[in-house]
């Protein structure tokens, strides 16, 4: 006898079985290009990845200051958790910088997560979860660095290289585009940037021998406006810096995997580019290898590279230059500041890319030298097959992707510094699409390391240094309260005096910091938010902390009532 099945109905959204209401106030409806142009004038909000187009990571909020910061404590904590098997279960990290609009926080996580939270209470309003294939090539780790907001929508990328526009009131998908080829080893991790009526993104995958690119999309429809490849094809400007024969250019890397900055007056988007591929085997790619390890100034209307500056020509150490380009003015000049993985601090004229000066910002640099006027001499690199070569800084650089900050009040840059070396042994391999393409065996030092938050004036003179036993691997935030916030790999969230570097406060967050803190206010009360979740490319950054526990919390601090 056949027994009828019990009707189990239809599967429902997992989030329906949570306390999330599913809706958020329509605060994003009025976020437009005009507001973004003057984002810092809304200190209660944090409207772009860096808080403003200039990449300073500086807030005008000063309610929390050097006098009272010792009294701040947790206001609320959001914990993400996970269910089931996820991609990159050993590498996921909370690397995002939240965005806040009029009391609503938008924050992305690893593995395709997006959450809208009440910025005052931490209540989850809605969530979006993109399904990420378990086998997607992650370069390097299951991470995401943030979102963009405009015109009632929020935008973010997923590890499998999709770009999504969501309705900011409920998290429902408005449009979606595929931005890269996962079979080729491409992925996506950066926070998009809204510029005019468009959105700018970049690609990840530099360790897989892809060809880097920057893309521009229509905000409303997702229509593709332009693509700018960061490695030229044969015959294009810059192609003379690659071997004339063969296809080294086609696997050349130069991925733009960290959000750039933008100057509306020059109409240029300043994009950092990543390492060449293979990372350590330069013999198969003779030449300077443009536009790897560079800043490319891209006309936002056409996608054309107007000028470029290469920080590490013919890189043999994995010295990406994707990290922030901070736009500032000095003596009436429009300048760009960049702290590179190669250990040097560069200041350029951002109207034309002309170098102003170069100075080292870490104690140990022996891969080569760069003079103050920019002449590069390589000294130690893996050029003989099977022969180990030790060099400083290691491939995570004297500063990894996590960001420096700049305070106009002190005229100082605050830099998360990593002082650790590595050994690379050249091991040539054939290129295969989707396979890691390093060209070396690499081991980062497990001891004899140091870190700091270091303050520099715009000429590169060090003003103070807050020392840490481990390399620093989280972004710095500067505020008008003359405070500098950052987090350590061992979990302490710290507040320093921006003028002296004195440690004024710290709080143990329970997991290492590898993301970007920010600040905002609601109803006149200032909050400081920090994503806490250790992970990512730890074998490259701090292998001695590879076994530390992961975290998945967003912790928000405020003064007591």
């Amino acid at each position: 006898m056949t027994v009828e099945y019990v009707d189990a109905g239809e599967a429902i959204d997992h989030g329906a079985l949570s306390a999330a209401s599913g809706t958020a106030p329509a605060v994003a409806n009025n976020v437009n290009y005009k507001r973004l142009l003057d984002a810092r004038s809304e200190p209660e909000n944090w409207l772009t990845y860096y808080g403003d187009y200039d990449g300073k990571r500086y807030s005008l909020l000063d309610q929390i200051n050097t006098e009272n910061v010792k009294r701040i404590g947790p206001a609320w904590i959001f914990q993400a958790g996970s269910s089931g098997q996820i991609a990159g279960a050993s590498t996921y990290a909370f690397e995002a910088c939240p965005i806040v609009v009029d009391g609503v926080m938008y924050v992305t996580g690893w593995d395709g997560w997006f959450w809208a939270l009440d910025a005052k209470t931490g209540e989850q309003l809605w969530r979006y979860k993109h399904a990420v294939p378990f086998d997607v090539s992650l370069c390097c780790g299951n991470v995401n660095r943030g979102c963009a907001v405009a015109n009632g929508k929020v935008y973010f990328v997923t590890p499998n290289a999709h770009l999504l526009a969501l309705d900011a009131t409920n998290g429902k998908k408005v449009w979606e585009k595929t931005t890269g080829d996962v079979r080729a080893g491409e992925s996506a991790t950066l926070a998009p940037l809204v510029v005019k009526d468009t959105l700018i993104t970049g690609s990840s995958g530099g360790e897989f021998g892809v060809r880097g690119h920057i893309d521009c999309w229509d905000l409303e429809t997702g229509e593709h406006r332009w693509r700018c490849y960061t490695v030229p094809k044969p015959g294009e400007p810059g192609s003379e810096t690659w071997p004339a024969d063969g296809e080294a250019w086609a696997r050349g890397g130069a991925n733009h995997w960290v959000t750039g900055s933008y100057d509306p007056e020059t109409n240029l988007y300043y994009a950092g580019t990543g390492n060449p591929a293979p990372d350590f085997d330069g013999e198969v790619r003779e030449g300077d290898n443009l536009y790897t390890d560079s800043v490319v100034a891209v006309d936002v209307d056409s996608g054309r590279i107007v000028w470029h500056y290469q920080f590490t020509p013919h890189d043999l150490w994995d010295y990406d230059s994707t990290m922030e380009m901070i736009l500032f003015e000095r003596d009436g000049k429009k300048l760009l500041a960049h702290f590179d993985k190669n250990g040097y601090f560069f200041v350029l004229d951002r109207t034309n890319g002309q170098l102003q000066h170069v100075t080292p910002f870490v104690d140990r640099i022996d891969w080569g030298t760069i003079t103050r006027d920019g002449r590069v001499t390589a000294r130690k690199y893996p050029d003989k097959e099977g022969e180990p070569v030790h060099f400083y800084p290691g491939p995570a650089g004297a500063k990894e992707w996590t960001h420096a900050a700049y305070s106009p009040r002190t005229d100082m840059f605050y830099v998360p510094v990593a002082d650790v070396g590595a050994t690379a042994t050249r091991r040539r391999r054939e290129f295969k699409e989707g396979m890691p393409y390093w060209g070396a065996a690499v081991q980062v030092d497990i001891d004899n390391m140091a870190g700091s938050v270091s303050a520099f004036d715009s000429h590169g003179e060090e003003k103070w240094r807050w020392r840490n036993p481990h390399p620093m691997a989280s972004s710095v935030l500067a505020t008008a309260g003359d405070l500098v916030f950052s987090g350590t790999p061992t979990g302490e969230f710290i507040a320093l005096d921006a003028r002296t570097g004195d440690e004024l406060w710290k709080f143990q967050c329970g997991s290492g910091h590898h993301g970007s803190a920010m600040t905002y206010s609601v109803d006149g009360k200032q909050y400081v938010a920090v994503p806490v979740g250790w992970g990512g490319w730890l074998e490259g950054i701090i292998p001695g902390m590879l076994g530390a526990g992961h975290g998945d919390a967003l912790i928000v601090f405020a003064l007591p009532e």
Partner: protein
Amino acid sequence: MATVQERADLLNKLGLDAQNQAAIGRVLGTGSIARATERADGTMEATIRIKEDEIAWDPAILVLPHGGDVELTIINDDKNTHACLLPSNGDKKFIWLLNHSKGRARLNLDGPGYYWYSSPGGNDEGRGLTAAIVVLGEVPPEARLDRPDQPRR
């Protein structure tokens, strides 16, 4: 290199093709494989099932010809209650599966690549009720890199 039959025989000999023999639960990837079918409108269809006393999904690997929408029929033929937590763009999909019950799930998946799903119940997790959905295909042409075809294998 074992042939397909040798692999099946060895799994059986070692007790790895059933729960609570060699291991406690079913080892991932030791079960069956099946393809989804496709309707004229491109929507894919398949049935996944928990057989009695196997604490495993059948098929263990479901293959979709491409990314997009798939409609699953989910059957619990077991004499225990289970659940199913599935990947889908927007949010994971959850269904509670009473003894001898049948339900449905509509998923949207990108691909290419593969996804795990499972029964997230307290008595089930780790016992073998974890299976894979494999999505075949390539990314859209406009998302591919502008370069000559590269060696892949």
